């Protein structure tokens, strides 16, 4: 049983996790103030014979304080969050040396196109495999997303990467995997009857393993 986000396996995991924890702390403080406050009031101010409520219409000072503190907190949170947002999603953040892989989503499978030996997508030695994403570890990978039919969403929880694949659009999403192993890719946007089983296997491999696999594929092997 997991009680937290799945263990992270990309360079995005740490900043997102830190931001998540920061928000958890901030909202936790607010949560405690409100819930404990409510509980305390419910007990302390319950009606008893002879008690009288305080006749007051409010306090401008209180209003200013509990407006300013949340407002400032939200602005700071926004600034910090935006820094990571730009790093992850901005087109210009895709590292120039990223290894490009094409992922074409369709009902209900992922067609993954590899650039082959020349390392370039869109050339003759590209090859396509269904439902298997192989990537080298510790190397930026850029996924070029497209869709055949409806909106799907490319989602690998451990990479902390999610990006919708939209028909009529060509969208690039990048990541850098940090832990070799096998993971799962799921579709995170309702795409029809088979949405629930639009699953692919993701292999993060050492450079040697990856190259070996690439050679085997180019030679016509099926894995």
């Amino acid at each position, binding site marked *: 049983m997991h009680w937290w986000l799945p263990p992270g396996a990309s360079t*995005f995991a740490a900043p997102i996790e830190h931001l998540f924890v920061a928000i958890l702390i901030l909202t936790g403080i607010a949560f405690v103030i409100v819930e404990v406050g409510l509980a305390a009031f419910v007990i302390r*101010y319950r009606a008893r014979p002879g008690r009288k409520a305080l*006749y007051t219409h409010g306090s401008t000072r209180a209003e200013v304080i509990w407006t300013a503190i949340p407002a400032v907190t*939200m602005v700071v949170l926004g600034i910090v969050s935006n820094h990571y947002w730009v790093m992850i999603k*901005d087109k210009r953040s895709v590292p120039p040396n990223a290894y490009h892989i094409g992922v074409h989503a369709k009902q209900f499978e992922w067609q993954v196109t590899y650039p082959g030996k020349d390392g370039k997508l869109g050339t003759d030695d590209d090859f396509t495999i269904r439902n298997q994403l192989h990537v080298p570890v510790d190397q930026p990978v850029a996924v070029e997303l497209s869709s055949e039919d409806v*909106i799907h969403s490319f989602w690998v929880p451990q990479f*902390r990467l999610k990006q919708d694949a939209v028909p009529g659009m060509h969208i690039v999403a990048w990541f850098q995997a940090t832990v070799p192993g096998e993971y799962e890719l799921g579709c995170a946007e309702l795409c029809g009857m088979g949405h629930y089983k639009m699953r692919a296997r993701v292999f993060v491999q050492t450079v040697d393993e990856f190259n070996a696999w690439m050679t085997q594929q180019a030679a016509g092997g099926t894995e």
Partner: protein
Amino acid sequence: MTHVAHAKPGAHGGGDAHHAPMSFWQKYIFSTDHKIIGIQFLFVSLFFLLVGGLLAMQIRWQLGFPGKPMPGGSILPQTMAPGGVILPEYYIQLVTMHGTFMVFFAIMPLLVGVYANFLIPLKIGAHDMAFPRINMWSFWLALLAGLIMFAGFFVPDGAPRAGWTMYAPLSARPDLSGVGVAQKLWSVSIVVLGLSSVMGSVNYITTVINHRAPGMTWFRIPLSVWALFITAILGVLALPVLQGAAIMLLFDQSLGTHFFDPVAGGQALLWQHLFWFFGHPEVYILILPAMGMVSEIIANGSRKPIFGYHSMVFAIIGIAFLGWIVWGHHMFMSGMNPTLGSTFMVSTLLIAVPSAIKVFNWMGTMWRGNLRFHVPMLNAVGFVSMFTIGGLSGIFMAATPVDIPLHDTQFIVAHIHYVLFGGSLFALFGAITFWYPKMFGRMMSEPLGKVHFWLTFITYNMTFFPMHIIGMGGQMRRIYDPTIYDFLKPQQPLNVFISYSAFALFAVQLLFAFNFLWSLKFGKKAPQNPWDDNGLEWSLPNPAPHGNWEKTPNVYRGPYEFSSPEAEARGTDFLPQSLKLPTDHDPLPAPLPATH
């Protein structure tokens, strides 16, 4: 002119005497009386709430026990659940229609159709709405829309299946989704519902602006009416956008247009922009009236004025205004320009501020009050506590990098349900109980109401809190069988726990249903002002008569003058708005409106 029918000169004996006697049909079925219309909305919406709940039970069965035959499932046709085992194509109909019925035909009409209609004229001292016949049409169109939507289950290929958010191109391409004529029925239903909403809003807005009793200045209007007024403005501006989108979707399917189909130059994202431009104000439509009614109940239960009344009004306006510029936060992962994502993040984080202000003001109202825990108060405090959780969870999703792992997971589902159920529905339990005597002349059972509240509170949190956890763990929305994914298998015990809790939660609601129905006939006869409240409605008999007041009341003070020195001097802790003290002056009589 719509009000000519009321203007029969002659004796004003009882409340109804200025009418020729009405037949049963005129009085209860084709009524133009805002109170009857509100009650009609109440019965119909509670029915759709039940429908939505039954759909949820099936969803929870499948998620907790994927692929197992559902008890009682054998009554479902082979196309939905052969042998009681829910099919994937039926499952996505269930999730779609659960959301659709709950949002459009349960919560929205319960909050607006019922309480805008019932409360507004009563609480501002008007005899009825500005346009009573249009008001009647508003109800019948809403009912028609609901029936059209419901028909979707009974046509070939069943109900729509693209989620209540109906994303195109899936929704525009029946060949890709498998739906049949029901998708077109969806569009028709939405257009009809939009008309109903606009008609209602025209009434609510005009009535609040023009038909307030003398002395009922803007800043003496009760917060429930402020909230309903602002909600009506949201509705009148947002629903037509959805109508436009629904029509474009309908045309894509039936006229061969290509608004949302990229194959011929359309744009898939256009649907999302249109839908959420409507959809975000819509969710504020689903919470603001609840907040307004909670304010009434908390002030009443605390025997204290609302803390920061003016701030509360500005917070309502602030939430409504900001609500127009946050829609892109539903689209952070959509492929929309990330810079747009940044701007929507800022506006979304900011909208937390007026909501926080409201929570603190409710707490301020309770602080040093003399708290009476009648059933409405229990539910109102429950609202504050649960809405806070729902609002705080929103902050996680507002921070765009954190939205990456959370978008389209059960974390979102948890958030939605904390604000809609923990929020709106708890507020509704409180409101229904609070205004029941004014509607039906009887009280609901207090002991039953208390048991219902506590059991609901417990089973509700058991159902929805763990959804945050499984969402963090990565369980996507709208998937038929989480156990397909290895990384989700370890969480399945929590899905089972949630499902059992949900079944218990649903069962507990039978208590409320029984209380509501039984009390109609057998509830204690209600005194005129059972809650010692200040609102104008409590100066009328229970149930309130047709036409409300014989003579428009005068208003002498604000709505929350509890425990004031003047009240003390009278030996009580409340001071109704229309009560004239020796020290009060009559407000100026209202000037005549122009008739041209």
